[in-house]
């Protein structure tokens, strides 16, 4: 009888069980159904793909150092910008925040033990990996030269590169996107904890919900379009073939029906991150919670109705050009509402300039710039001059890198302590945020100027008068590269040497911060009950406001 208490006394003090140390085998990671581990698997995969896509960008920038082009063959240049575009869009920007932070955070934020379909979640990662292997096989076999847009009839009838394999990879990648979006939609609808009403939902979840709608409704149209392209490339005959009376512009319509909304897939999650970070570091409720929430949905909806602004000079009628131009202006309204809401949230807040906040402030400036030049490009008459120039390249890099990548990095720095339980070096965090901001502007601002002066995109060589802008841009790109490598170093360093963060180093609000860091496998010991509105920073005690 006495043996039982005796045994419990000699037992050594146990390390708290977390999702990271619950099991250790490789098998337990590869067969995990835990949304947090799947988020990590995704993070590793997309980081790897980002590196390869960045390599494509490096080739492009090196080639453009001289007006005649440094790469020997123009076709090599075509392959370099194609691999950069295809990999960045489908293997980094589209999955970036949703598959990593969406996976990790949505169940924690809504107070659930996991997403609704954990097996489907794991399956979608495997599909993603398969698609990544296939697209890397395309590179291995000699690349792809169509540009990421696959315009017909070049891609279908003339290109001798591996179009069919590439579209197969993107098709499978699309299934991964659809399953992720489906999982989020169902989880947000059905898995919310008691008391977590729609208007108590964190704005990150609203943003991911809008993103998921686009995943689910736009991706299938790309899928069928790619099937048609693949068939046409394989058989050298198809429904976009002008010889049969087929219409290449129809391809552009179908392609942009997906590929315009997809830019909102790339930016809406960043909006979600911004709402979380701005409220936390300004210690205020968001200005206009409902406005931010509904503007996400409005962007998703209107985003479906603006696709032909990519085709103003493709021979569409002036009337349809007019309609798409006006609708494209309209999408600026909900976007501006968000920027104004965050600005008003900062107003009179006690703003702490920690690393995540620096990234978000950078994002707000760069994204505003990218957005306003977007309005310029949506203007029918102006676009005729700007179309296919570096002005467009600069515009979408300000939106996608200045928006999407900055948001991703903000999320990495904001939730790093939650995910790993460690603190990174705040000093190096700030340094690298500054380097990225400087490098980014030096890379892409000269491209605005070169484009405005008429430098066309996608050419291997260019007139000598544009050289100064291209040299500046390449110099900026190398600074940007340093800015991307630094976080990799100090974040990995923090895993081993970083201080323990405690559950909530930012004193942030939200259910995810009520769990220990890193969270246990089951997230919550008991299903939490929510009884208060979100972001009640104004009700927090003053001591909590002193951010460490």
């Amino acid at each position, binding site marked *: 009888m006495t043996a039982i208490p005796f045994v419990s006394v000699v037992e050594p003090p146990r390390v708290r069980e977390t999702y990271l140390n619950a099991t250790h085998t490789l098998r337990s990671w590869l067969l995990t159904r835990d949304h947090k581990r799947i988020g990590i698997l995704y993070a590793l995969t997309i980081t790897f793909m980002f590196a390869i896509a960045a390599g494509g960008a490096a080739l492009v920038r090196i080639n453009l150092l001289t007006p005649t082009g440094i790469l020997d063959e123009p076709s090599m240049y075509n392959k370099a910008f194609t691999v950069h575009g295809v990999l960045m869009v489908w293997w980094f920007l589209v999955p970036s925040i949703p598959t990593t932070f969406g996976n990790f955070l949505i169940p924690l934020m809504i107070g659930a*033990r996991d997403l*609704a379909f954990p097996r489907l979640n794991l399956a979608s990662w495997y599909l993603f990996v398969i698609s990544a292997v296939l697209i890397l096989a395309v590179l291995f076999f000699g690349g792809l030269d169509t540009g990421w847009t696959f315009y017909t009839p070049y891609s279908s009838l003339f290109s001798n590169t591996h179009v069919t394999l590439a579209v197969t990879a993107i098709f499978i990648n699309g299934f991964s996107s659809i399953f992720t979006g*489906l999982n989020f939609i*169902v989880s947000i609808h*059905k898995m919310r904890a008691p008391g977590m009403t729609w208007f108590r939902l964190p704005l990150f979840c609203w943003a991911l919900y809008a993103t998921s709608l686009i995943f689910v409704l736009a991706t299938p149209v790309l899928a*069928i379009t790619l099937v048609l392209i693949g068939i046409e490339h394989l058989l050298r*005959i198809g*429904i976009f073939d002008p010889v*049969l*009376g087929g219409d290449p512009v129809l391809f552009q319509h179908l392609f942009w029906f997906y590929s315009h909304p997809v830019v909102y897939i790339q930016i809406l999650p960043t909006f979600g991150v911004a709402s979380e970070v701005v409220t936390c570091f300004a210690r205020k409720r968001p200005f206009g919670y409902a406005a931010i929430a509904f503007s996400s949905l409005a962007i998703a909806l209107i985003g479906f109705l603006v696709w032909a602004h990519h085709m103003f000079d493709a021979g569409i009628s002036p009337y349809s050009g007019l309609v798409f131009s006006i609708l494209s202006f309209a999408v600026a309204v909900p976007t501006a509402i968000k920027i104004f809401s965050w600005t008003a949230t900062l107003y009179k807040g006690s703003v702490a300039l920690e690393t995540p906040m620096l990234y978000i402030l950078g994002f707000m400036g760069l994204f505003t710039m990218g957005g306003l030049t977007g309005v310029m490009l949506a203007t029918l008459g102006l676009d005729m001059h700007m179309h296919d120039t570096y002005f467009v390249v600069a515009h979408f890099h300000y939106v996608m890198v200045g928006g999407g990548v900055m948001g991703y990095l903000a999320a990495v720095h904001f939730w790093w302590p939650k995910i790993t339980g460690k603190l990174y070096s705040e000093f190096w965090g700030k340094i690298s945020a500054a380097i990225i901001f400087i490098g980014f502007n030096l890379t892409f601002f000269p491209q605005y100027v070169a484009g405005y002066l008429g430098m066309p995109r996608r050419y291997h060589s260019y007139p000598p008068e544009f050289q100064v802008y291209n040299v500046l841009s390449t110099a900026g790109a190398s600074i940007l590269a340093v800015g991307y490598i630094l976080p990799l170093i100090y974040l990995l360093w923090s895993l081993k040497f970083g201080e323990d963060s405690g559950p909530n180093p930012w004193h942030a609000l939200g259910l995810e911060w009520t769990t220990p860091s890193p969270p246990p496998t089951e997230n919550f010991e008991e299903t939490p009950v929510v009884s208060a509105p979100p972001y009640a920073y104004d009700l927090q005690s003053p001591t909590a406001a002193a951010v460490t």
Partner: protein
Amino acid sequence: MAEDLVIESPHSLVEHQFEDRFQQKEAATLGMWTFLATEVLFFGGLFVSYTIYRHQYPEAFRQGTLDMKWYLGAINTAVLLLSSFFMALAVRAAAVGSNPKIIRYLVLTIVVGSLFLCIKVTEYYIDYRERLVPALNFSEARPREDELGGFTRTFDKFDEWFDSHVSPPIGKAAVRPRNEQLFMLFYFIMTGVHATHMIIGIAVMLVLIWMAHRRRFSAEWHNPVECFGLYWHFVDIVWVFLFPALYLLRNP
């Protein structure tokens, strides 16, 4: 106490992330409907393209329609509706938790669904003999009677007899318009994608039959059967739109 023993423990059927089986069932159903929404957009891309081209080349597409065996399409529509009927019975059997009946009705669904695919393949064969397959043997000139083979000629004779009895005359062109290839491409891609969905469906049904054989389903838990029923009916509905679009728009 006796009552407690009769009731199955709900927790054995509920996955760990759900609170109870009602939440689990609602999530499963919403997930399936969301997936079907993606399917609508997937086929939507094809239907939109088809409509645009049909509008652009009305006569070529009509000539393509005239080359279809509408009666085989009509028989197939009936066959597919019958398979959906058996699917509905299988879902009903699942709702009352009868595994043997689930197996019986799913087998019937598979048999009737396979009959659909057989008739479809027969049509493809006829199209091949008639030289209607783009990239393989499409020719603007119609094949001579002796090139058709006895099987295909029977259908051709019936077509001739039928078309000579409709008024106004349908005006089948002696030489096929070049753009008819576009119609044939749509025909093969759309029916091919539809058939692929059916083959995947039949594979899933084999898994469901195996599960039912292991007595996995009960009145409390039968989400896979119910969700698969939605999928199968959806595939059926796609055909209900494909059939008139590809077979029935015959009048000038």
